[in-house]
């Protein structure tokens, strides 16, 4: 099956709404599981990995949640297709590098995605827009309970679910959320926030997870410890921390608008100016500027413009998505030209940001005067 016929369009993806989606772009809970027999994927020889895939894939496909799912062996997906899945946050970069003996099962509405033979035999994830960690956990817990009746898991009374890497041992759970935090970055409060989140045993990472930078002011927050406490405790701790980060971000935005509105207008105005007028622009710069436009939409500087447009452009502008729209294989420099063309075209009906007199009505966040 063609993955592009299956996947929702970037416009549809950007339309998905969830609680607190001004700041929390998406929630995810993933579980790592392995079969009792055989070696972990990183140590297993190819024939064994193929055997595991042949055993696990039909079991996953047969789950009620996976009705009409997209199911494919990784060697049947092209490099561009895999990169698109990474840019949609459906598979890890590590999984994109796999070929024969690895597979992918993605359900119809893209809320469940199971990677087979990534680092573990099974990496199953539930994905939700906005802040919905509990819902994601409940969903993946149910899927896992169905699957455990079809596949014999490696489980120890003492150590729980056995995983290839000891860092995932026990519950095998990774609870994470993707946050858009331009206020904290502009207010230069992001580093102390990251440090205090780290102190609670949580990791803060960039846009594409482990070892990546925070492009577009997007940060991933997730648990690190998986052994010695139960899933609910982990989910609730993260939920609590996220609520606090949301509050800090809202406060940072409000304070910026009260104390330094010109700084905010300047950043957003320049971002608009470049995106709407550039003739060559890299994906990194685009994402950083789109982040500022997203902030502008949030605080009411772009009346009539939907946040979904920014989110759609955020997806479309990434290298594989951009390449996909073109027939010829382009160099990065050529892509920068095409990207700029697309931005100018898509933003031609968006007027420049309205900077109001601060202190007056409608400074966006100044609730006392509204």
């Amino acid at each position, binding site marked *: 099956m063609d993955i592009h016929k299956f996947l929702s369009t970037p416009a549809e993806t950007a339309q998905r709404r969830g609680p607190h989606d001004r700041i929390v772009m998406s929630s995810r809970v993933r579980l790592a599981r392995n079969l009792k027999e*055989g*070696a972990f994927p990183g140590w297993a020889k190819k024939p064994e990995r193929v055997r595991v895939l042949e055993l696990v894939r039909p079991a996953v496909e047969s789950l009620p949640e996976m009705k009409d799912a997209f199911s494919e062996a990784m060697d049947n997906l092209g490099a561009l297709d895999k990169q698109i899945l990474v840019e949609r946050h459906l598979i890890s970069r590590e999984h994109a590098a796999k070929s024969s003996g690895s597979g992918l099962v993605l359900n119809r509405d893209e809320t469940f995605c199971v990677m087979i033979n990534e680092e573990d035999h099974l990496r199953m994830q539930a994905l939700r827009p906005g802040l919905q960690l509990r819902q994601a956990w409940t969903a993946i817990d149910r899927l896992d309970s169905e699957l455990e009746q079809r596949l014999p898991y490696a*489980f120890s009374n003492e150590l729980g679910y056995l995983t*290839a890497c000891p860092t995932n*041992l*026990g519950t095998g759970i990774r609870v994470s959320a993707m946050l858009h935090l331009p206020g904290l970055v502009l207010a230069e409060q992001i580093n102390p926030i990251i440090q205090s989140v780290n102190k609670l045993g949580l990791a803060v990472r960039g846009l594409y997870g482990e070892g990546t930078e925070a492009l577009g002011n997007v940060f991933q927050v997730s648990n690190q410890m998986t*052994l010695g406490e139960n899933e609910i405790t982990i989910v609730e701790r993260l939920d609590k921390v996220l609520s606090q980060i949301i509050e800090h971000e809202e406060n940072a935005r409000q304070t910026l608008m009260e104390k330094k509105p010109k700084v905010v207008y300047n950043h957003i105005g320049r971002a608009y100016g470049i995106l709407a007028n550039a003739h060559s622009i890299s994906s990194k710069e685009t994402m950083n500027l789109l982040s500022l436009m997203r902030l502008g939409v949030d605080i009411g500087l772009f009346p009539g413009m939907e946040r979904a447009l920014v989110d759609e452009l955020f997806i479309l502008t990434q290298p594989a998505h951009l390449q996909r729209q073109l027939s010829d294989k382009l160099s990065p420099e050529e892509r920068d030209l095409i990207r700029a063309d697309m931005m100018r075209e898509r933003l031609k009906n968006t007027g420049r940001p309205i900077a109001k007199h601060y202190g007056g009505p409608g400074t966006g966040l100044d609730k006392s005067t509204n």
Partner: protein
Amino acid sequence: MLCSVCKEKPATVHLTQIVGEKMQKLDLCEECAKTKGVNDPTSFSLADADVLFGLGASQEIDQSTGTETKCPRCGFTQVDFKKSGRLGCPECYKTFADGLSSLLKTMHKGTRHAGKVPEALRESREQSDRLKLLQKKLAKAIDDENFEQAASLRDEIKQIGPRGPGLNVT
């Protein structure tokens, strides 16, 4: 195995730590451990061991054991673990249990699983937990010379099952 410092007495204190990207191990006898102040492994860094003990080079785990441990099921070795940070198969958790336990302590909240259990295993897990608890109580009852209670505990243990982990109480 001899103590890495005095090289005389048998080593009874074993420290394993990930330093940078390497897993390192230090084996000490009781006395050397005491004199060097290694009584709380969590506050002790093997990265400082070279300086502290004047060891030529910190012993990496593959070198510290004369014969290398190998997983009987998948052939994975400690060197492989050091290289990749990942294990070979579920059985490796038993094979490398000694080295792993201190590693898990530094990595996680606890060392015993406290989360979900597959439904099919739930009963047997509860039973083995219950057996362990009863055995503890039994040992205490015997210590306290409370033989009446000990007898009833023993009966209870017998009822649960003929075999349980460590059920060698007569």
